[in-house]
């Protein structure tokens, strides 16, 4: 390393009072960029959207012996001059058109295991008039395969500093940070830039001549030779693209992925539920009764619980996705799914987000980050909530058992029908939106199949943590606010107990005071009184009044005032619907059978049955298609950076749900049910 120049120290002093110099990592996908970034910055990094875009990048600080360097991990691109959104974004970023300042140095990533292609990429990037440093990544992997690069010789060839690194072993990472800082501080003179251009092939050179140039450079600076591709990779790929074994693997991998978020995640979710339940009980016991206690226990603790309940699914999904992506399988899965999904205007990469949405739309929507094209990604986000999530499940169970009591075959069929209806509606909506609002040529699949590599659990854990924090930071506050507002709407204003309730309470204490009181009977009376109180409170609250206003809207579907309130409150989260129905029908919460029984015989004020077959069926269709989930709406707002898309999505889904529900009800009514 050269001794520090006085002017360099001066420059450092200026920088240290303002901001640290910024380096941008620029490279092709799957070249070890993110792994290198994590090595450089460790925990001093955060993930954020690039200002004004929905594309995210990581920004972090790297400590060098000469000071601090800010590093930005740009999205992987195949070429800087391509007309795809990611490449445009990188160009804008390098020019300082987006973000607060332009980077001071470009760190160009060159994958040692795909060296010739990396050299071609670098030759384009080096044509920009800005300080550049070349980082050769995956050096350990290449060396193991008998290939190594002479950094000094390459530096001579390209006219810019070259550092050999490995994100896995940490080799050369400190030197890279030093070299980047040095280059940033030195800046670039016209003279040295022209010198650099002299080393590079002309910009007009044809692709095959460029390949020839890259091969010449390779011969000059590298020793050893990499075989075309490993035979192991070849054999694995042969098995994985085979019509039978390939499909079997695909189904197996996706089932494991799905099972882990559908089934495995319920254990940590129950754990969280328990923790919040106990802390709520504890707070209830220690605080004096009153509105403040209600706010703390039901509003805030309930709201926090309603937010973090999504974390297990999000964390598990991203942990597994990181392993799958790192291993190289995810690209193969997208390849396999592409042909089918393309018919609906969606890319192969949409498969995993849509599958995950069957567990919960939130992790599904978050995982659309895997889709490179912005239009493809937006279309996937818009239709993801159509997939039947776990929160819809209890509603399905309840309504289907109501409709098909004693006919298990039909009930099973109806279940499949609900899931299929959601998926089909989603795919058809995608088809529609890609031909109207998100028109434009679809980007055909040209998907690199990265080599199979051993995935890193460390990186996966890091991704999981990063996603969890990001969810809480971005969407958490909004979801919490929604929960508190919804709680407030259904808890206020307080209604005075009705004479009926007062009488019931008096009767309860009377029975309890009797010498030969039956504790079971007392408890039954007490819970009946509690349910009546909840019911009165619910109908008298703001939510109840809103239900009164909205009732005419739902009247054609056969919903009465109480049912409308239930539908409205279920916006918070669909699972609330079932508990609301319990309150409406005054059933004890632990007794599903009696709930069913009561619902079947529940009558409106005018004596007609509430749950006739047409009403129950229209309710079921409504829940299958409607976007009854405010947290999803909040997340879509976050991910698309605008209110336009979530509102549009909400209007479309609700409109479709209402119309389909109406059609089903009318058809059944005409059919004489």
């Amino acid at each position, binding site marked *: 390393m050269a001794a520090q120049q006085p002017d360099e120290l001066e420059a450092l002093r200026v920088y240290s009072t303002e901001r640290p110099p910024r380096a941008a990592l620029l490279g092709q996908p799957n070249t070890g960029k993110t792994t290198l970034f994590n090595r450089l910055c460790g925990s001093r990094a955060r993930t954020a959207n690039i200002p004004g875009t929905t594309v995210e990048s990581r920004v972090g600080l790297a400590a060098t012996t000469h000071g601090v360097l800010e590093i930005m991990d740009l999205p992987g691109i195949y070429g800087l001059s*391509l007309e795809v959104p990611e490449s445009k974004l990188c160009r804008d970023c390098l020019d300082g058109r987006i973000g607060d300042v332009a980077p001071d140095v470009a760190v160009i990533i060159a994958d040692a295991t*795909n060296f010739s*292609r990396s050299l*071609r990429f670098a030759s384009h990037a080096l044509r920009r008039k800005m300080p550049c440093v070349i980082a050769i990544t995956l050096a350990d992997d290449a060396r193991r395969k008998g290939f190594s690069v002479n950094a000094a010789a390459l530096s001579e060839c390209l006219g810019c500093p070259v550092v050999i690194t490995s994100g896995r072993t940490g080799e050369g990472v400190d030197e890279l940070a030093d070299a980047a800082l040095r280059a940033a501080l030195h800046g670039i003179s016209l003279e040295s830039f022209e010198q650099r251009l002299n080393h590079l092939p002309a910009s007009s050179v044809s692709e095959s001549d460029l*390949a020839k140039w890259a091969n010449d450079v390779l011969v000059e600076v590298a020793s050893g030779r990499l075989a075309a591709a490993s035979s192991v990779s070849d054999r694995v790929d042969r098995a994985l693209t085979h019509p039978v074994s390939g499909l079997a693997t695909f189904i197996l991998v996706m089932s494991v992925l799905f099972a882990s978020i559908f089934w495995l995640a319920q254990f940590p979710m129950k754990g969280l539920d328990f923790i919040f339940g106990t802390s709520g009980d504890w707070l209830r016991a220690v605080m004096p009764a009153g509105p403040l206690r209600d706010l703390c226990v039901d509003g805030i603790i309930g709201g926090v619980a309603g937010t973090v309940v999504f974390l297990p699914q999000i964390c598990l999904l991203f942990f597994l996705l990181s392993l799958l992506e790192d291993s190289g399988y995810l690209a193969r899965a997208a390849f396999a799914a592409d042909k089918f999904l393309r018919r609906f205007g969606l890319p192969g990469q949409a498969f995993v987000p849509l599958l995950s949405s069957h567990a919960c739309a939130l992790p599904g929507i978050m995982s659309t980050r895997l889709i490179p094209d912005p239009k493809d990604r937006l279309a996937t986000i818009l239709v993801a909530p159509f997939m039947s999530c776990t929160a819809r499940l209890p509603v399905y169970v309840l309504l289907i058992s109501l409709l098909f009591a004693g006919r298990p075959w039909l009930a099973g069929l109806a279940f499949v029908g609900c899931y299929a209806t959601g998926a089909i509606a989603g795919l058809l909506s995608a088809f529609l939106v890609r031909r109207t609002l998100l028109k434009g040529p679809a980007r*055909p*699949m*040209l*998907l690199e199949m990265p080599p199979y590599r051993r995935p890193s659990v460390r990186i996966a854990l890091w991704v999981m943590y990063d996603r969890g924090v990001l969810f809480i930071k971005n969407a958490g506050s909004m979801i919490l606010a929604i929960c508190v507002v919804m709680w407030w709407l259904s808890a206020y204003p307080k209604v005075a107990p009705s004479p009926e309730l007062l009488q019931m309470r008096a009767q309860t204490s009377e029975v309890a005071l009797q010498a030969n009181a039956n504790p079971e009977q007392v408890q039954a009376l007490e819970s009946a009184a509690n349910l009546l109180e909840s019911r009165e409170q619910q109908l008298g609250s703001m939510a109840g009044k809103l239900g009164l206003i909205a009732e005419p809207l739902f009247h054609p579907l056969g919903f009465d005032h109480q049912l409308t309130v239930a539908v409205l409150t279920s916006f918070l989260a669909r699972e609330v619907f079932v508990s609301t129905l319990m309150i409406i029908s005054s059933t004890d919460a632990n007794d599903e059978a009696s709930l069913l029984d009561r619902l079947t015989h529940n009558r409106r004020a005018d004596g007609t049955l509430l749950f006739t077959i047409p009403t129950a069926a229209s309710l079921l269709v409504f829940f299958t298609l409607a976007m009854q989930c405010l947290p999803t709406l909040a997340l879509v707002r976050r991910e698309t950076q605008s209110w336009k898309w979530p509102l549009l999505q909400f209007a479309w889904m609700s409109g479709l749900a209402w119309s389909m529900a109406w059609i089903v009800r009318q058809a059944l009514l005409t059919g004489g049910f």
Partner: protein
Amino acid sequence: MVVIPSTLMGDGAAQSKRIPLTQLARGQRAIIDSESLTTLAEADRCLLRAMGIHESCELKVCKAGAPCIIEVERTRVGLCGSVASKVFVKPCDGCPAA
């Protein structure tokens, strides 16, 4: 202009028929025809080139049909049928099949 040697080998007048990529069998090697990428949309052509799939480069088929997977140097790329059917290649009999 420097020509990759294998082009010369495959360039015998009789054996070099232009066929779309989708008609190659697995393991077969071929050379991309020098005119063939011009029928593709500009954006796709540029992306393919940036991925290393350019005129007169040699490729190997890893998964045949549409969609297909091809290997060029150390890069494997999956192409959908609509693109692959527009990429014309000359099978090179001189190159040993895998």
